[in-house]
């Protein structure tokens, strides 16, 4: 409603301006025409004189105007009134319709804007809620990840500990095996070297008498040995 009034006020202001502009223009034209005479007069005096209210033709020649007389202001006002009447009589409904259409469009625009605003508010609320939910979810995810990381860390530490214990056990077992092997090897070498040493000593000390004695012992026992061997 305010908009309609504002538009109407605009139209009235414009019309008045046009109505006043017409007489003023006509006045200026008449004055100009009159001025030429004055100028002619002034050329003898050498200066212009400023127009006054009394110079305006208000009503002279309203119905019949001699040539050179400016259009009276009242006539112009009448013309203007007629113009307004015609505008109001014939252009008014169209203007009203246009204004109503415009009002309707503006109202629709306002409604759409309102709806958009409501939608935006809803969206805002929705996104705020979502953001809050996101924050909550993010916190939940962070907590979950932290928990998982802690569990993973615990698992890795446990596995590392088990691995360490396993390696330690293997190393101990290997060490023990190697110690056993080393001991066996040392004993084997000691035994073999002892036997080689004994061989060297016997070779160095055995003589013909010993050979005969050993041969005699062999000859005495070989029969029994052969019996055992062959029967076995």
């Amino acid at each position, binding site marked *: 409603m305010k908009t309609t009034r504002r538009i109407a006020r605009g139209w009235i202001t414009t019309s008045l301006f046009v109505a006043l502009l017409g007489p003023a223009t006509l006045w200026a034209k008449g004055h100009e025409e009159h001025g030429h005479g004055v100028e002619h007069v002034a050329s003898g005096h050498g200066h212009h004189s400023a127009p006054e209210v009394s110079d305006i033709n208000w009503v002279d020649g309203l119905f019949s105007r001699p040539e050179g007389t400016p259009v009276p202001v009242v006539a112009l006002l009448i013309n203007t009134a007629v113009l307004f009447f015609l505008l109001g009589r014939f252009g008014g409904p169209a203007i009203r319709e246009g204004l109503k259409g415009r009002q309707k469009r503006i109202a629709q625009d306002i409604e759409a804007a309102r709806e958009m605003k409501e939608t935006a508010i809803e969206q805002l609320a929705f996104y705020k809620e979502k953001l809050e939910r996101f924050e909550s979810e993010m916190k939940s995810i962070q907590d979950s990840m932290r928990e998982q990381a802690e569990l993973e860390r615990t698992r890795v530490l446990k596995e590392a500990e088990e691995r360490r214990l396993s390696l330690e056990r293997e190393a101990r077992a290997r060490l023990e095996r190697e110690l*056993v092997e080393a001991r066996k090897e040392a004993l*084997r070498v000691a035994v073999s070297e*002892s*036997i080689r040493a004994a061989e060297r000593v016997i070779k160095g000390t055995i003589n013909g008498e010993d050979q005969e004695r050993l*041969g005699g*012992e062999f000859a005495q026992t070989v029969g029994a040995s052969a*019996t055992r061997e*062959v029967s076995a």
Partner: protein
Amino acid sequence: MTEVRDRYAQAIYELASDPAELDQVARTLSEFARLYGESRELREALENPVFPMERREAVLVDVASALGGSEDSLATRALRVLFSRRRLPILAELAQTLRKVADERKGIVRAQVTTATALNEGFYEQVGRALSEALGKNVVVERAVDPQLIGGAITEVMGRTIDRSVRGQLRRVEQDLLMLTAQQSLSH
């Protein structure tokens, strides 16, 4: 190859008139096999196709004669057959088989007695008697010397080995000690 060897051995065994002849053939073939294995010149003379067959056969007969076999003896004839059929490489195994067959026919068992040094004759006679009594067979002692034995003796008879050498006893002591130490290591 075993079948071929046994076939030739059987033929020679049947052709031999008595165990003495079989023993002679076995000895001749054994000696010839030893020479054939050791002498590259003899192998060249017998196998080189550059020489005529008659010349090569004449060499064979000459060597066989030098080993104690006459031209018509069973050993020489056997060598000729083996030569003509390119069977000389089985000669060593054939001689061994014949020796074994001859020994069996004569009831002889051969025992190889190895000592670190050569011992007196009484030792070998005593060993032969002891083995003959123990095995109930006529044991012939073949002698060998191996200083590596250090002392004592080893005899191989009827596929068995009786080791009473010093080296053998030391080996046994070594084995016993190693087994003992291994058992102790396991028990620890």
